[in-house]
């Protein structure tokens, strides 16, 4: 990809050293980018997702009924995902629940990593916009186990450089500028409440687990499959970080 070869050329030129010249955006720049949130191309994905949920899941009503809540309670219920779903005896994301509903309705479910499912997840989660993140990691033994697994995945050093998620996202490292970007505090930056999001560098809607995979690739960690127990656990852990900072849900997000 052209971008990579430019970066390689930059390194060979050693025209850039770390230290003083790490280019970080000013507050004015960040405010400008925040304005972009207003007209987020992912709003079109959310609309499309709504059409798909209507077609394959029976819309909001069908979704609510499948999950055993009233439509009025749907936003509150959605704000608590990932959840332990008794029917399937597993801690699941909203996308996995919609797969099951599609199957029940006689449709072949979209793959979790498909554009369609990303859009459906964005729509369904946006039903909880402005709700506080309500994930309850103590709701039952299964949620406790999922949280514990997620924390383990977050903390485990692995891969060629012996890195864990925590290597770059622990409280004492956050804020350090790495490759022009300050390393984010995943709770404070509300990763749990702002994904699915439009990624500007990918010009498309992406989900949190998909972003985890990209991050793992960059850190030379073996990529974990979307929807696996480990990935769902990781999402539970990261979502709890945002809950601890009292964040609310705001979909679609906008990210670099």
């Amino acid at each position: 990809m052209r971008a990579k070869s430019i970066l390689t050329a930059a390194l060979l030129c050693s025209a850039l050293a770390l230290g003083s010249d790490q280019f970080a955006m000013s507050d004015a720049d960040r405010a400008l980018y925040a304005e972009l949130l207003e007209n987020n191309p992912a709003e079109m994905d959310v609309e499309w997702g709504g059409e798909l949920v209507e077609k394959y899941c029976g819309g909001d009503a069908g979704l609510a009924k499948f999950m055993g809540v009233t439509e009025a309670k749907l936003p509150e219920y959605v704000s608590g995902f990932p959840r332990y779903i008794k029917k399937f005896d597993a801690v699941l994301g909203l996308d996995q629940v919609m797969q099951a509903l599609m199957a029940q309705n006689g449709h072949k479910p979209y793959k979790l990593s498909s554009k369609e499912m990303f859009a459906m997840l964005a729509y369904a989660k946006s039903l909880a916009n402005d709700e506080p993140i309500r994930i309850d990691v103590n709701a039952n033994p299964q949620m406790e186990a999922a949280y514990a697994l997620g924390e383990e995945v977050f903390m485990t050093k692995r891969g060629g450089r012996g890195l864990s998620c925590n290597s770059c996202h622990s409280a004492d490292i956050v804020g350090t500028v790495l490759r022009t970007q300050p390393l984010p505090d995943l709770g404070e930056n509300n990763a749990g409440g702002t994904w699915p999001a439009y990624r500007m560098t990918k010009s498309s809607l992406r989900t949190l687990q998909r972003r985890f995979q990209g991050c793992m690739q960059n850190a030379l960690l073996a990529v974990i499959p979307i929807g696996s127990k480990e990935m769902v656990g990781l999402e539970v852990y990261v979502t709890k970080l945002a809950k601890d900072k009292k964040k609310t849900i705001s979909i679609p997000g906008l990210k670099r």
Partner: protein
Amino acid sequence: MADRKSLIKIKPKKYKTGEVVKVSFMIMHPMETGMRKDKKTGQIVPADYISDVQFLFDGKPFTTLKVWESVSTNPVFTVGFKVPGNGALTVTYKTNTGESGESTKKVKPKG
């Protein structure tokens, strides 16, 4: 006529006749520059971008855009609009490949 996802937004959502609002048109389109190589095939992906956009009110054009390939993928275009009254706001587009499309939104001032 293509079935591309697009959205017309008016800000603020509540407005009066005579008020100047912001109208945004966004559309899902790859905006291929014709200078990018497909990673898998090694071939240049042909140019495919929105080249013209027009904003009309009740059929009368009030803004015309000439758009080039370096506008971002999934573009958003925002212009000002002095609300004349009730009517239909239409946005049409054309691409360099001969595709065209149109969408409409009702303008309903309150007061």
